[in-house]
């Protein structure tokens, strides 16, 4: 271990930690919560810039050998995920009574950062837990509604089950190889030994649970609906990104063969189908996004079917597109006194006539999530399916595309409600200024991806 390497390679983590310490100090000192949001914004921005800077400098080092390592591509992904957390922070302005939100969010982001650099199951587990634990509390924060408590408990129990499965799987791999390094996973994928196979399946199941893949998805819609809007956005974007990036990192250059291949193809396919079908029947936007995120987790896991070389890029690009537009929809959602009524789809009826900006932004987000060109959601989906097809899985690619067609209806229904209803409805308050800022930033970034996709792809 070399102190210099620890200082540079973990700079993003250090900056987040510094932010956490300052926030704790502020909390003890009883300072105003506006300061805490500002501190969190600065810390996350600094951490994202540090990650981007290290990536641009081409840093590839392992300060703790076989535990934690960074490389330019991983650092870029880290910078992206941290940057996606900024709109979440902006959205939280005025949403919570206490000052816990920025602190918990930073703690969770620290976990995501660890996850993206984990080289051993120990670090991986640490990152996963550190990412999830604060989110259990964040779900509970949601305006102290009874649904929030129920959602938090469900999420906690199933999150615990996922951790247990991960630990069991890791211990089986440890038992067969004598090492905790994640590289044993890559070897185990190629192995036919029953013990190793069981370990791999358990770990994959844990990842499926965390990412809400059918049949491990039931917690997601409840948790998404029970949480308050910024927390839902955080779960749908950052937590999902963390899990998927960890998964694609874990798989490294492993090429899954039958029967693991079928597991990795059919369950995500089932998620796409079921997520898209169940979303049609929802009357709450958050719940609908919950099901939609189940479908999107399916597309993301589909990326693992592609050739190893292009997988990481495809996942990062997808997270960029999916994250930006999901955050855009949440940031543009007009606030309401009654948190539960806020995202009823019925409340969106005729929104275009009351709040044209919100309606246009949410509409754009829906089209992108549905994968309609030229929006980024299409380009990202194109990349994933291109890779799957190039790896020779023609049938899975076609089935996945046809399943994605099922999602079109419910996204369009949101647009139909907002634009095609003559009903005026009650006036809605304008979104708060920071949330507007967040939505503008997301929209501009999304438009840049539309106009210069080549530039973005070349840099991921």
């Amino acid at each position: 271990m070399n102190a210099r390497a620890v200082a540079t390679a973990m700079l993003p983590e250090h900056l987040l930690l510094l932010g956490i310490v300052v926030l704790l100090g502020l909390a003890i000192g009883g300072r105003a919560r506006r300061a805490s949001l500002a501190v969190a914004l600065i810390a996350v921005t600094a951490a994202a810039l540090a990650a981007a800077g290290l990536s641009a400098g081409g840093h590839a080092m392992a300060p703790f050998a076989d535990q934690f390592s960074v490389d330019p591509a991983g650092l870029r992904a880290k910078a992206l995920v941290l940057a996606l957390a900024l709109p979440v922070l902006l959205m939280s302005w005025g949403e919570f009574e206490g000052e816990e939100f920025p602190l918990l969010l930073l703690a969770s982001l620290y976990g995501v950062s660890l996850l993206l650099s984990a080289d051993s199951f120990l670090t991986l587990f640490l990152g996963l837990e550190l990412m999830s634990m604060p989110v259990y509390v964040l779900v509970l924060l949601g305006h102290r509604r009874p649904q929030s408590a129920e959602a938090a408990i469900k999420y906690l129990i199933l999150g615990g089950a996922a951790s247990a499965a991960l630990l069991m799987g890791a211990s089986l791999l440890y038992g067969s190889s004598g090492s905790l390094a994640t590289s044993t996973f890559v070897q185990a994928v190629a192995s036919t030994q029953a013990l190793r196979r069981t370990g791999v399946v358990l770990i994959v199941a844990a990842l499926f649970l965390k990412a809400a893949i059918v049949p491990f998805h039931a917690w997601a819609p409840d948790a998404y609906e029970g949480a308050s809007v910024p927390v839902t956005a955080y779960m749908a974007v950052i937590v999902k990104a963390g899990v998927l990036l960890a998964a694609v990192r874990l798989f490294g250059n492993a090429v899954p063969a039958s029967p693991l291949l079928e597991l990795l193809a059919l369950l995500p396919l089932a998620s796409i189908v079921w997520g898209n079908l169940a979303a049609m029947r929802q009357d709450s936007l958050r719940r609908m996004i919950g099901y939609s995120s189940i479908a999107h987790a399916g597309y993301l896991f589909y990326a693992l079917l592609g050739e190893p070389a292009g997988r990481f890029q495809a996942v990062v690009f997808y997270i960029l597109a999916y994250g930006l537009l999901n955050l855009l929809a949440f940031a543009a959602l007009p606030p309401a006194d009654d948190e539960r009524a806020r995202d009823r789809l019925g409340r969106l009826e005729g929104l275009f006539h009351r709040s044209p900006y919100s309606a246009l932004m949410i509409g754009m987000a829906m089209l992108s999530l549905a994968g309609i060109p030229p929006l980024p959601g299409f380009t990202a989906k194109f990349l994933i399916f291109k890779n799957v097809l190039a790896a020779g899985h023609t049938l899975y690619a076609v089935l996945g595309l046809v399943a994605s067609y099922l999602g079109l209806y419910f996204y369009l229904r949101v647009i139909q409600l907002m634009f095609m209803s003559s009903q005026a409805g009650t006036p809605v308050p304008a979104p708060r200024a920071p949330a507007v800022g967040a939505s503008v930033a997301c929209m501009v970034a999304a438009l840049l991806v539309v106009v210069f996709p080549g530039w973005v792809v070349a840099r991921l």
Partner: protein
Amino acid sequence: VSEVLALNLVLFLPLVGIVLLLLVPGASDTLCRRLTLTMMVLQLLLTAWLYMRFASGVPGLQFETRLPWIAAWGVYYQIGLDGYNVLLVTLTAFLGPLLTAGAFSAIGKDVKLFNATLLLIQFAMMGTLLAQDLFLFYVFWETMLIPMFLLIGIWGGERRIHATLKFVLYTAFGSILMLAAVIYLVWSLQAGAGVTSFAFSDLLNARLPLHAQQWLLGAFGLSFAIKVPMVPLHTWLPDAHVEAPTAGSVILAGVLLKMGTYGFMKLGFPLFPDAARLFTPVLSTLAVVSIVYGACLALVQDDIKKIIAYSSISHLGYVMLGLLSLDLIGVQGALIQMVSHGLIASGLFLMVGMIYERCHSRELAAYGGLAKLIPVYSVFFMILTLASVGLPTTSGFTGEFLVLLGAFKAAWPLHMAGDSGALVLAVVAVSGVVLGALYMLRFALTFLYGPAKAPLQPQQTLMDLGGREKLILGLIVAAVFTLGLYPDDALRKSESAATDYRQRVSSSRLPVAAP
């Protein structure tokens, strides 16, 4: 150089218009309309200039732009004019100002959004026609969907939600299979020739085994056939037409449907020629079924918009028949028929819109004797009806006559060789002309002659056409006659494409067996 710039402007002017519309906060409805019209007129002027500059008889692209867009995937921003798209581009630019002006009085709700939607769909249609890169083509192809969805869904009639969802879900299903085919096609080119490219020119040289060609043509063809639409995939069209506002119907009939036939001609058949020749009997039969079935349904409709909608199905059947004949005259006839139908159907839909604005009814039986009430309207209506029937001197005649001539020319040698299938189809297709005369004349007779009646508010009197309306219809009628009396120029400009298309679809592109 200036032509290249002009062509890019033609594509992007509508987008500039949208940005301007967004930038003017609280702009009055009149300003929004005028701004949109200005953009459309500018686009038309530039297109007209490019049409003059377009050299006939030169194969390949003219005024080409090619810039890397997603370099890592071999995707280029590549646009240009060639014999395939030059007529349709001109048609699209020609209809733009007309439908914008046509909607001045018809649309009073969300005027800004309406004009932005018109500009967006104009942008997407131009892009689809000009694109010379499959990725770009697909992006524009899909982009057309959303403005049309809004156009029908916001400004449509009573059952607009049903109609617009049906339209989108139908067309999107075709598109998603086409996307799979696009990826597979590019990937197999990469695996075979080692080139990662979406450029039409590269893809048109890819060699594919017959079974792959069949699947891919199936996927592309389904998407195109839904758009055309060919029986039995046509059921979305009457709903969409009936519920759409006039501008929506004009776009649909004028340009959108031609995207299907254009897709077959530019991509579907030339990309997979061996499969195309294999499918020709089935597709020709479907084309003739479309001609006859569409005409029969048009004969029994009570809704005047539905009559024109079904007649569109019938008329586009001729285009498909011409393309499938693989005869030079037939293919050129198909190209003329595309433009001709675009003009005539647009004109008729605009006229239906004008009478609907006055009387708020689309029921044929509610009208009668309009010739006495509104003579100028009736003259225009009669001209367009006769053009639709295919009266010589109008564009309708040029298109249908050339297609049928081509179909017979191609079928005769086959008949002499003992295979009379194509000849039977050509003979049945001729009956479509008779049926066409029947339904259009039934329509015009009920509409214009007999006892004078029109559904009106009690205090209203029926107004004849105003200056703006006369100008719109006058331009369309002038174009119809120009194409009917002097099709020479249009034929020469598109001849290189017809020759190229014939040569491509006639040759085999199966993989060459290693010696």
